[in-house]
């Protein structure tokens, strides 16, 4: 009978979702892994001995660290980094999606959402957190979080067809 550290199976289950959230929260795309590493190691050192850590704790740690790190860099650098933030959301997903126009349009629509709505959608859809957990992660009220999610879905419903039309128009003009 072999044994292995529990964190490995835990991270295999939650790592991709956490990394996606870290990419959204970080100022620079290349900072996301550092952010996730720092948050995960901190939380696992505190609670890892129990063998079961609520993912919400790591999401919250990522968010708070991202805020701390953003404060620590000066404004000029922050402005420069804003430019680097414009890496498309599709970079954080399986590249086979490039073949699927509808899914590409979905991602582009998600990308257009305001940051506050985008993070709620990320935590709800891909993080699989409840509204209560999201509220605690973001230090917001339950109603605020639920409203942001509803508004986001309403926008996506309208924007996805727009994105698909825009894409087909671009294709036609390029021909």
């Amino acid at each position, binding site marked *: 009978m*072999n044994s*292995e*550290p529990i964190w490995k199976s835990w991270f295999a289950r939650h*790592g991709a979702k956490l990394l*996606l959230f870290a990419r959204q929260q970080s100022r620079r795309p290349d900072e996301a892994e550092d952010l996730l*590493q720092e948050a995960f190691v901190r939380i696992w050192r505190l609670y*890892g001995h129990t063998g079961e850590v*609520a993912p919400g704790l790591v999401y919250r740690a990522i968010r708070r660290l991202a805020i701390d790190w953003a404060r620590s860099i000066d404004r000029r650098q922050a402005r420069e980094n804003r430019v680097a933030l414009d890496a498309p959301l599709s970079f954080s997903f399986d590249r086979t999606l490039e073949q699927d126009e509808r899914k590409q349009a979905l991602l582009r629509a998600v990308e257009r959402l305001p940051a506050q709505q985008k993070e709620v959608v990320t935590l709800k859809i891909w993080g699989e957190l409840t509204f209560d957990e999201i509220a605690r992660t973001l230090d917001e009220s339950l109603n605020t979080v639920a409203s942001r999610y509803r508004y986001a879905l309403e926008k996506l*419903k309208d924007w996805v067809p727009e994105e698909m039309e825009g894409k087909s128009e671009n294709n036609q003009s390029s021909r």
Partner: protein
Amino acid sequence: MNEFEKLEAELKELRPLEPSQQFTARLEKALGDAGNVAMRCLPDDEVSGATHQSAHPSPKEGNLVSFPRLLAFAGLAGTGLAAVWAIIFYLSSNLAPDSPERVDNDAPLLAQQEIVEPSVGFSNDPESPLHGLSLDQLQDVSVMPVSGWLDPQINERFLRMVDEGIFQQPSGLPARQVRHYFIDETIWSHPASDTRILSTTPREEVILIELDTY
């Protein structure tokens, strides 16, 4: 299924990229010993997919470098060694056919005491694990070498984890009780006499995981 549910289902079909192998290896290095505190059993044929390829100490090696465990094992090792010495000493002094006490059964009491006295005379050797016996005396009576032992090899084997359910703590808050079963093995080796002593000790750890109330 309404329009929002359909949209949610479509979004859920998009899978975020998995973290790279290099990143997982980096994480493992950063976690250090903290990563080896909680373990789970795997069937022999199961290998932990992506994460197992990175260079990291095996669970056994990881456990060896855990400081609190080393302390516990050192304590166990000391107690075990002392117990072994005491048993050997007791057996050799009572059962050995050529022990001086047995040979001189017919001798007068005073004479017998004179013979016995040097072998069990009280000695204050601080190095000796037994009070009243020097290391040389200990070696004579136990027929075991006292010096030349290698550092003990300590090995912790994780057997299983049992979830014993939810309990109410004295504070009133609920907590899940999880029990870990281990076997601690300690091996002492003496290369000169080709002697090995194995001690196994079962051990249990009870962990209370506090639960949030809503």
